[in-house]
Structures are given as structure tokens and as C-alpha cells.
């Protein structure tokens, strides 16, 4: 019987095995990259809002504290969104005739809420709580970035589990004194590593085991 395969088939077989491995690895790598891409995590994406509200104006230029509008950030899971009345505290007079503010005034007149588009949206099988982070020395800008420089808010981080865990494994690398939580100019280099460990101890941050236990965030 004649040989079915030519001798060169050996090489073809080897090359195709190699090609197969490379293909699988590339597919795997692209998958992890795609999963982390802004297309799937919503990172850096701005949303069309009913009012062109600008944090750059209100926080950066006018110096309004986050809590003036997000008033429950220290006490509840949600940071809190400002009711229309909050806007009217100032806009009863300032830019009162601006067309950009018409939806706000309509909402106030008709007692209907403004429908803001959510920018950050964790899946609902995860539990997140602002108050504990604010109380234990994690500043707004650590998670939300330079809000004071954003004409429209976008998501600065992926909000994926690996991102949460990176901090929960080593919180001392990210924390700051409680007086600086709302300071948008704070830099991580403002504390050295020894001060960080002292701060971690004084804030009584729990052990790595507890902070990375599944039931902390999936309950």
C-alpha cells in the first residue's frame, strides 16, 4: 500500500499544532482585553443628560462641596442625587433665564423628577456602600477621578471585580486622611508608606481576609 501521507506532513502537523496553540492563546488574550475594554465596562463614556450639568463649573470653578448635592454620601449606601430644589437654591437667581436650565425649572414647576442617566452602574448582584468607604479614608477622586475637571461625568475606572479587589487586598496604598476625602487635588504621593500603615491602623481597617471574602460584596 502506498504511503497515505507524504513525509512533509510531519512538519505540517507540527506547525498546525503550534498555530492552534497560538490561535487559542490569542483568542483568550483578546477575550480578556475585550472584557476590560471601555466598550464592555462603559469606562470613559459620557452620557447624554437631560440637563447639561457641568461638574467643572460647579465644583472646579465655584468650589461647591460634593455633599451640597450628594448629601447622603456619608450616611447611606447611595451617594444621593440632588433633588430639583437643590438646583433652585441658586438658579432661582443665577442664569434664571438660560435655556439650558429650562428642564430644571419645568421639573420644579410640575413637581416631576429630572431623569438623569446613570453613569456608574454596578450589577445588582454586588453590594456597594459609599458610607463605609468615605468613613475609612477612601476619597471620591480615588474611585471617580478628577470630577472637578469633567464637563460631563464619565466612569474613570472599570468597576470590575478585579478593580475592587486590587484595593481590598492592599487598602493602605490608596487611603488618605479623613480630612482630605473631598479634596480633588489630593495625590497618593502626599503620604509615605510608613504614614500609610499608621493611617490604616488608626482607621481600624479590617483584615485582608474579611475584605476579600465573597460575602462582603455578594450578599
Amino acid at each position, binding site marked *: 500500500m502506498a504511503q497515505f501521507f507524504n513525509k512533509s506532513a510531519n512538519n505540517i502537523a507540527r506547525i498546525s499544532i503550534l498555530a492552534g496553540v497560538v490561535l487559542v492563546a490569542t483568542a483568550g488574550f483578546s477575550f480578556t482585553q475585550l472584557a476590560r475594554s471601555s466598550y464592555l465596562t462603559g469606562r470613559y463614556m459620557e452620557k447624554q443628560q437631560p440637563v447639561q450639568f457641568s461638574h467643572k463649573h460647579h465644583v472646579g470653578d465655584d468650589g461647591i462641596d460634593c455633599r451640597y448635592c450628594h448629601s447622603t454620601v456619608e450616611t*447611606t*449606601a447611595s451617594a444621593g442625587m440632588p433633588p430639583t430644589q437643590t438646583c*433652585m437654591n441658586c438658579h432661582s*437667581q443665577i442664569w434664571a433665564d438660560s435655556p439650558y436650565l429650562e428642564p430644571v425649572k419645568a421639573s420644579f414647576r410640575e413637581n416631576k*423628577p429630572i431623569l438623569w442617566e446613570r453613569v456608574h452602574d454596578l450589577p445588582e*448582584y454586588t453590594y456597594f456602600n459609599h458610607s463605609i468607604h468615605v468613613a475609612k479614608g477612601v476619597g471620591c477622586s480615588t474611585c471617580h477621578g478628577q470630577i472637578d475637571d469633567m464637563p460631563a461625568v464619565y466612569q474613570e475606572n472599570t468597576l470590575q471585580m478585579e478593580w475592587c479587589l486590587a484595593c481590598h487586598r492592599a487598602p493602605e496604598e490608596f487611603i488618605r486622611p479623613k480630612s482630605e476625602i473631598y479634596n480633588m487635588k489630593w495625590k497618593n504621593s502626599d503620604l509615605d508608606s510608613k504614614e500609610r500603615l499608621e493611617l490604616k491602623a488608626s482607621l481600624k481597617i479590617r483584615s485582608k481576609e474579611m475584605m476579600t471574602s465573597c460575602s462582603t460584596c455578594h450578599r
Partner: protein
Amino acid sequence: MLKNSLPGVVRIDDKGKSMNRAICLAFLFVTSVLLSACGIRSDMQDQPRYKAYKKSDFFSDGRSSRDFVAGTVPRGQLKENKAFYTGKIDNPDVNAQPVTTTDASGNTLVTSFPNAIDEFPVPVTKELIDRGQDRYNIYCIVCHGPVGNGDGMIVRRGFSKPPTYHDERLRNAPVGHFFDVISNGWGKMNSYAYVVQPADRWAIVAYIRALQVSQNPDEVLKANSKAEPGSVPPKSGETTHGGKP
């Protein structure tokens, strides 16, 4: 290899086994096709429950967070302590209206304060004043400015200029008046009751008093002969009960 798997060589008693295997494989294949046909479902991401601020399709105004039913009192919010919750004396005279005038810039100035209490209903401590400073710097500083001169950032952007805290009139105004302004608003200033809880309102009032002392220590001392130089402003650990600090 090739020979063995020729159809004719398969033994009869093996047939059942391979049929079972085939059924199993077919079953797995069909279920996986069915599963993937369901598409990517996100019931776990978006669960049918209300998270804060989630839109409701049930209520006509679209809000899932509802107000209290009119006339009901939540547990622990009976507000029996009049002085603490209103800044007014126990049996206010309803006919007594404050005397007000309107100044050149359109601000409403008040000169008599019927019914307003003149003593803090809470102990004035360093912690209270610190808390007050914290809250003042969030909610009031934007208009009233860092020391209460009425030169905040929003005023510089065009909001009407509020009166300074450091004139004769407001230095002598009872604490109940400040509490009333925060709770119910005053002229062109809106109420801040919806974000500043009563305990925090008293903290802010205590801090405003401290600001008044810091801006005009001599005047305040003269007006308040009870206070001794050493006790103004209160130091850490010291406790002054009621009255003007």
C-alpha cells in the same frame, strides 16, 4: 484502528452503550443550543427590585422613593421637644409677628424676635462647634463666605448678597432665629431643612456664634458680661451650657 471502527465490526451488545452515549451527546448538544438561544440574559444585573433612585413604572411620577403618607408620624419623629425641633419657645404667641424692614439691596431685615428661644437646647461643646464648621463649609459657605461676611463664591457669580453675620442686629439675634432661617428659609434664601437635620442645624448655629466671637471679640464680650475672657472661644474639652458663648 480504521478497521475496528468499520460498521460491520461493531458487536451487537455494544450497540446499546453507544446509543446511550449518542443520546447523551445529543442531549448535551441540544441543551447548549437552547441555552445559548436564550441569549445573554441580565436578570441578575438588573433585578426586579428598587435600588435607590431607580425608575418606577408603577407610580405616575416615576419615583420609586415615596413620601410619607400625609398625617403619619414615623417612629421616633414625634418631635415633642419644641425648642429642639423649632427653635421656638414652648407656648408661642401666634399673634406676635416679627418686625421686618427691607433694606436697599432688597434683604429682609428683622429687628424683633418674638417666640425665638435664646438658649441652645443642646450642650455647646467643642465637638458641636467642629461639626457646625464642617456643615457650614458644605451648605452655607458658598453664599455667606468663609467667615460670614456674605461674600461667598455664588454671590460673586451674581446671587444677591446676604447680610453679614457681624453687625449689631444679627450679633444680638437669639439662636432660635438662626435655627428658624435654616429650617424655613428667609426671603431670597431657600430652606435647608431637607439636607440639614435639626441636630446639625444647632451645630451650625453654634459655629455662627463662634464666628461672631472671632470677628468681634470685644463687642461680644461687652454685650455679654457673663462671659470671661478665658472662655471665648470655647477650648477643647470645655463645656458651656446654653446662652450666648
